[in-house]
């Protein structure tokens, strides 16, 4: 399966839902664009979790272009897609890898968003490229978090550096990077405990882990990935802000896109923080990770809308 097909496969639910909704707007040939029409469009957009603001601005743009006219589906979608693409246009998609020595990737996010699983998926991706991977089990808080990562490490063939339960996560980060340097590994991925962006001391701990990760490898961490749950609503904006401030996020992994949730909140996040989505998670397995492609993302959302 090609990338586009896989994206579409992961987003099929989304596309189906959205497209049925949009098709409902058009009973015959076309429909008069009036307030009622625009309200229906607004509803469809809001349901993607993009938020009332962005949805409103798209609605207004459609209104400006089409109000009083009878429109074809394709015209309308072209306008919506153009607007979405404009918002999501990004060039900083690729992971930044170290020129030499291990690349250090730190993974952060709120509780249960999918950090540990995403790390397993990333590790699996790198292993597939023949790279050697060290994982740092930096969640020393949650029950059996270390065991969870250990199982994944075994499954994907990565080395794991563990800390004591209740121990200092920064020291795990230090030992993991040291291990990666020592063994000449290509990749070192640091897991962190889930936390809410409002917990000041825990956010500060992230800053510390980040600093420690750069002790042995000056450029590290090369990437700080924020894992966002696609089912999250507008609070994800606060998450992006809080985690970026504390840990200097460089990109987003949008997990759980295989459900009915649409993950549209990455649109305002991109708009406000210039934070690119780098990967999407589309399942619980080690292979269920795909690079995020804005054009495909937008296309896949509306792929079945016409025809």
């Amino acid at each position, binding site marked *: 399966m090609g990338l586009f097909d896989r994206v579409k496969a992961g987003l099929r639910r989304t596309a189906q839902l959205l497209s049925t909704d949009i098709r409902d707007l058009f009973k015959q040939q076309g429909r008069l664009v009036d307030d009622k029409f625009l309200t229906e469009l607004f509803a469809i957009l809001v349901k993607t979790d993009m938020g009332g603001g962005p949805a409103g601005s798209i609605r207004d743009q459609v209104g400006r272009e089409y109000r009083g006219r009878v429109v074809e589906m394709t015209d309308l979608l072209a306008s919506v897609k153009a607007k979405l693409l404009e918002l999501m246009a990004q060039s900083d998609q690729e992971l930044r890898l170290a020129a030499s020595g291990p690349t250090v990737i730190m993974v952060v996010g709120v509780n249960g968003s999918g950090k540990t699983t995403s790390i397993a998926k990333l590790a699996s991706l790198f292993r597939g490229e023949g790279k050697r991977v060290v994982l740092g089990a930096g969640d020393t808080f949650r029950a059996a978090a270390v065991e969870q990562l250990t199982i994944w490490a075994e499954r994907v063939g990565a080395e794991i550096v563990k800390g004591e339960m209740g121990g200092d996560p920064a020291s795990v980060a230090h030992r993991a990077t040291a291990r990666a340097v020592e063994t000449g590994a290509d990749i070192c991925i640091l897991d962190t405990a889930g936390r809410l962006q409002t917990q000041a001391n825990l956010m500060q701990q992230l800053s510390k882990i980040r600093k420690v990760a750069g002790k042995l490898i000056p450029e590290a961490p090369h990437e700080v990935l924020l894992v966002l749950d696609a089912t999250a*609503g507008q609070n994800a904006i606060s998450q992006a802000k809080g985690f970026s401030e504390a840990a200097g996020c460089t990109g987003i992994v949008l997990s759980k896109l295989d459900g009915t949730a649409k993950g549209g909140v990455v649109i305002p996040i991109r708009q406000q923080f210039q934070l690119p989505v780098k990967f999407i998670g589309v399942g619980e397995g080690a292979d269920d990770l795909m690079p995020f492609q804005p054009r495909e993302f937008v296309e896949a959302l509306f792929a079945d809308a016409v025809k």
Partner: protein
Amino acid sequence: MFESLQDGMRAALKTLTGKAKLTEANMREGLRLVEQSLLEADVSYEVVQSFMERVTAQAVGEKVLLSLDPSQQVVGIVHQQLIELLGPVDPSLPFREDVTVYMLCGLQGSGKTTTTGKLAKLIQQESDKRVMLVAADLQRPAAIQQLHVLGEQLGVAVYSDPNTKDPVKVCQDAVRKARQERIGVVILDTAGRLAIDRELMDELKRVENQVRPDKVFLVVDGMTGQDAVNSASAFNDALELDGVIMTKLDGDSRGGALLSVKQVTGVPIKFIGTGEHLDALEPFRPEGMASRILGMGDILGLVDVARRAVDEKKRVELEERLRAGQFTLEDFRDQIMQFMKPGLMMKLMGLLPGMGDLQQMMGSVDTEKDTKRLVGIIDSMTRAERRNPKLIDSSRRSRIARGAGVEPVEVTQLIKQFDVMAPLVQGMAGAGMAERLRKVRELQAGGLFNPGAQLMREKKGTGKRLSTKEKADLRKQRERELRRRKREERGR
């Protein structure tokens, strides 16, 4: 910062308390704000729509009975309806004679396993029942260990069976064992699953059919967005839900998904999770949650905070002076400084409606700078001038402007602004809450909450809002002009 604060307040107050009478038209605008706020809180679109209809019907019915302030009326109705929709409360955990079985289900990562532990702890505390946790999640790596760790922490039994892949069997065996060992309560921790995963939803149905849990609780992440209606209705269709538990409400999520879930399932909301520790489970209270979701800024609370901003001692002094009609520029300055306290700003914002866009608010340091300029002007005055601005003639004005590094016209504007405000502020002394509320509204028009922007607005001479870039340009222009003047002065 001040600007958006003022915008939010102005919008809220203008639409909600602006007119003496609650008309169809101004109610619609108030309701529109409520609607916006609910969407911002992640209440699902359809749920918002049906809720707004209900509220409107209610409000129209009460129109003739208007004896309250319109804002109180509208917000009061909305709040009341929210409480009604979220209620009634039922934090009970009923037990039967022999073995009571509770089952938790929900999406991946919503907090089922942790909540299993929390419920066990609660039951341990509130009854003499012995509890057994059952590891029915055979999917997630280390899910079984996770439950064992929690069991150890709590000192309760954990049942797991490494030799089977069938959660139905695990649950059946566990209940049998509990019966043998006379353990009164069994809690089933099931695997997280997507509502559209046929196979796994069927598995859940099989557990329900064959183990017959007494209560089935849906565990919902407090940060969930619009998808809440989809997943909740799927779980509700597949199972006989008895209650909802919403987790992760210890953060800044508004938790509007709870309204959606309540609407589609109709079952009581039992508990909320407020932390990762096992004691962080609270009985659900609709009043608090309604305010949290509504986020319409308790306007009375705002007045209260604003009043407390001036520390107690100063406040007493100030009130004395106000009563005596002696509100001076010095007091004005103190007030401004009080409003610049960062913690206070955050608190005020938390109380304000439509304040979702924190970024934008915190980003505009411009206004803060302008506020400093304003304070600078007052600081450049002599004590006598501060006490009696009438002393300030054109030569004094030039001196003050030079001292503060501003243009003389800005000094004039500040004094004008103060003239407008002083009587209003004075009117606040000793007033009751309702009266204060009205005064705050007037003060805003006078610019107390936005002293810096007042200067800026006059400078531009237009009422339209400027983009950040335009503001930056204007500021640069102003600073250039100031530098030029300073150079000239030095040259003289």
